[in-house]
Structures are given as C-alpha cells and as structure tokens.
C-alpha cells in the first residue's frame, strides 16, 4: 500500500467513508427497500475496497496477480452498477407499462450496439482487453441512463429527486470512466497515475451527490398512474400520425409552390 501515492490513498479512504455513510443512511431511512440493487452495488464497492487492501498488501500494486484479481473485482462492481442502472430505469419508467416496454427494447438495442462496437473497435491487446471490456460496459450503462432520461423528458414523466440524483450520478460516473479508460488505453504508461486520480475523484464526487440525494426520508411518492384502455392508444395515435403526415405534405407543397405576391 505504501507504493501508492498519498493522494490516491486519501481519495480511496474518502470514497470508502462516503460509501459507508451512504449505506448507513440507506439502512437508517429504509431506502434499501426502495433501491435493493443500488444498495448491492454500494456493498460490492465496499467489498472491492476490502479485497483491494488485502491484495495490495499481500502482492503489491504492480504484480500480475494484483492486476488480475483487481480487475476481476472491478468486473463485478461494473455489472452491479449496470443492475443498479436498470433498477433506476424501472423505478422511473416502470409505472408506465407501454412506455417502459418501448423504452426497454430501444435501450437494450442501443446499449448492445454501443457495447459490441466498443468491444469490436477497442484494443485487442491481452493486457488492455479488460480495459476495453470495462469501457464497453461503461458505455452501455451511460447509454442506458441517457436514453432513460431522454424518454422521461420526451414523455414528460415525473422523476423523483432521489431517482434523478442517482441516475445523474450513475450516468456521470460512467461517462467519466469511459473517457478516462479511453485516454488510458491510448497513453497507457504516461496516464496511469492520472487515471487513478480521475477515477477516484469522479467516484468521490458522485458519492457526495448520492449522499445529498439520500439526506431525507421519502416524504411523498408519485401516485400510480391510472392507465387508459388499450384501444384508446390504438385508435387515436394512428389518426394523429396520419394528420401529421398530411400536414407535412401540405407544408411540403407550400415549400415547393411558388407563392404569388398579392
């Protein structure tokens, strides 16, 4: 551990303290019932820290074993974050069955395209392959969160402040890690120290955001919406689309026709 710079150790310690504080708060306010997967993600983070401390004390910071085990635990944490992101998506859009069904399909498709393209175009070097995988998972999560918020914006779906903060944190963290990994993959040796700083600092900032989001117990919840009969949508929306199409045709004619001045 003594091989690590002091600043890195400080940010790790801060991140661990903030994670513990957040977990404590979530237990105290019974928020773990509302966000079980998010709670699991925080626990996974803590476990990773415990494993990391043991690992670096036993093997050192630059050994192959340390590298392998460290990145294996990172894979679990990223996957746990992916599940937490899915949970937030469901909490925001899940009440609206139709929109949720549509959003889920589109988000899975977009996420899969991003994931596959990142793996395909990323570095295939054995040592950096794990970074590429990490990057693709981060890109997948970021796409999910951004897509979710775009859906919420488009359909004017109400988003509770806590959900908003958690999704912002998850999205920001994934974007930061994605960019960080990209620069790391390109300038491996020169960027190693900075990569650690950026990664830890981003996580600390996001933890502060989440602590802020969880500062109070839930005072009110969004009421369950009363959905319309299925035929309302099926009868009305095609008509609206037809009208829009006609309107566009009229506008197109308008554009192409040379109007005469009165």
């Amino acid at each position, binding site marked *: 551990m003594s091989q690590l710079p002091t600043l890195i150790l400080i940010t790790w310690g801060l991140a661990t303290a903030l994670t513990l504080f957040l977990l404590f708060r979530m237990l105290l306010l019974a928020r773990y019932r509302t966000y079980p997967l998010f709670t699991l993600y925080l626990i996974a983070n803590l476990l990773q820290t415990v494993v990391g401390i043991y690992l670096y004390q036993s093997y050192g910071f630059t050994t192959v074993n340390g590298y392998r085990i460290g990145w294996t635990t990172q894979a679990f944490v990223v996957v746990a974050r992916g599940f937490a992101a899915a949970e937030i998506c469901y909490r925001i859009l899940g009440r*609206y*069955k*139709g*929109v949720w*069904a*549509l959003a889920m*399909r589109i988000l899975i498709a977009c996420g899969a395209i991003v994931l596959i393209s*990142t793996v395909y175009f990323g*570095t295939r070097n054995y040592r950096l392959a794990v970074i590429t995988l990490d990057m693709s998972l981060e*890109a997948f999560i*970021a796409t999910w*969160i*951004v897509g979710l*918020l*775009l859906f*919420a*914006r*488009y*359909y*004017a*779906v*109400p*988003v509770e402040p806590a959900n908003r903060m958690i*999704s*912002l944190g998850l*999205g*920001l963290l994934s*974007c930061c890690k*994605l*960019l960080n990994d*990209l620069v790391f*993959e*390109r300038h491996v040796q020169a960027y190693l120290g900075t990569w650690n700083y950026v990664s830890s600092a981003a996580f600390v900032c996001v933890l502060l955001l989440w602590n802020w989001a969880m500062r109070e117990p839930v005072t009110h919840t969004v009421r369950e*919406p009363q*959905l*319309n009969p*299925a035929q*309302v*949508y*099926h009868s*009305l*929306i*095609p*008509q*609206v*689309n037809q*009208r*829009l*199409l006609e*309107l*566009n045709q*009229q*506008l*197109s*004619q*308008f*554009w192409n026709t040379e*109007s005469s*001045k*009165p």
Partner: protein
Amino acid sequence: MNSPFFFVAVVAGLGLAGLLFWALRGASQREGHEHGLGALDKAPRDLNNMPQIRQSMDPADFEFAKAKGGRYLENRLRRERRNVALLYLAAIRRDFEHSLRVARVIAVLSPEVLGSHEYERIRLAMIFRWRFQMTKARLLIGIIPQPQLLTVWQMAASIAMQMEETMAKLGERAALAAELALQSEQ
C-alpha cells in the same frame, strides 16, 4: 486502438455527458404528466382567428390602400400584416405542439405503446418543425402565402378538434367507470 475510433469514442463520451445534463434539465423543468393532464382541459385558442387573418391578407385590401394612399401606405400595410401573419403562424405552431403534448400524455397512460407509431410521430414532428421554419423564412423574406397558411391552419385545427372529441369520450368513459364502481360498492 486506432485514431478515428479514439476520436469518435471521445466525442461520443462527451456527447453522452452533454445529453445527460440536457435531458436531466428538461426532466426537472418539465411538469409531470399529472400536471400535463391539465393541458387536456386547455382548448387551443389561437385557431379561431383565421377569418381575420385571411381578411388581413386579402389582395384587394392592398390594392385599395395603394389606390387611396399610394405605394408607401401599401408597403407599410403589407409589412405590418406580414408581421401579423408571422405571429399567427407561431400561434398555429403552439396549438400544434399542444396537440402533440396531448398525444404524448395518451401514450404515457396507455398500457401498450407501439414503437412504430411513436417513431412515426417523432419523425413527422421533426419534419413539421423543419418545414415550419422554412415557411417562416419565406414569410420573413416577404412572401405572404395565404392559401398555404389557410391549409396549415386547417390541419392544426383538425387535430385539435379530434383531440378534444377523444378527450371528451375518455371523460365520459371515466365517469361511467366511476359510477359503476360506486354502484358495485353499494
């Protein structure tokens, strides 16, 4: 990693972060669908003034102004009435957007939503906005397209009326359902 992919990925990453803030800002600024339901009660107000707008763009009016007050008066009248036409076009757009908002509320409150319908609506709305801007540009450069403006108005009014009819039907159904529920409880 090759350079093109690196730059594309960096731009995509930054773009995602930007989109995240933009989408979040919109989500926090916009009212939820429960408040958005209030939009259903607000009938479009701007679509009832078309006869006056048509009258204001009547070529005979300009000819009359030219005959009585000369070219200066005709030009001034034309300029002022073009401004009115622009304002009216903006009002038509507002009403159109209102109808679209109602359609979104219906989609949100439906247990089944078809991707093809939603995609089509988004695509058409984007095309509408683009063509609307082109129409506005034509008006700004001095072309007053009376028949076309009338058509745009008819289309927007038609959607608004259809929406109102459907919402009235929905209201009747909801009232009937509430009444039946009350009867079954008794």
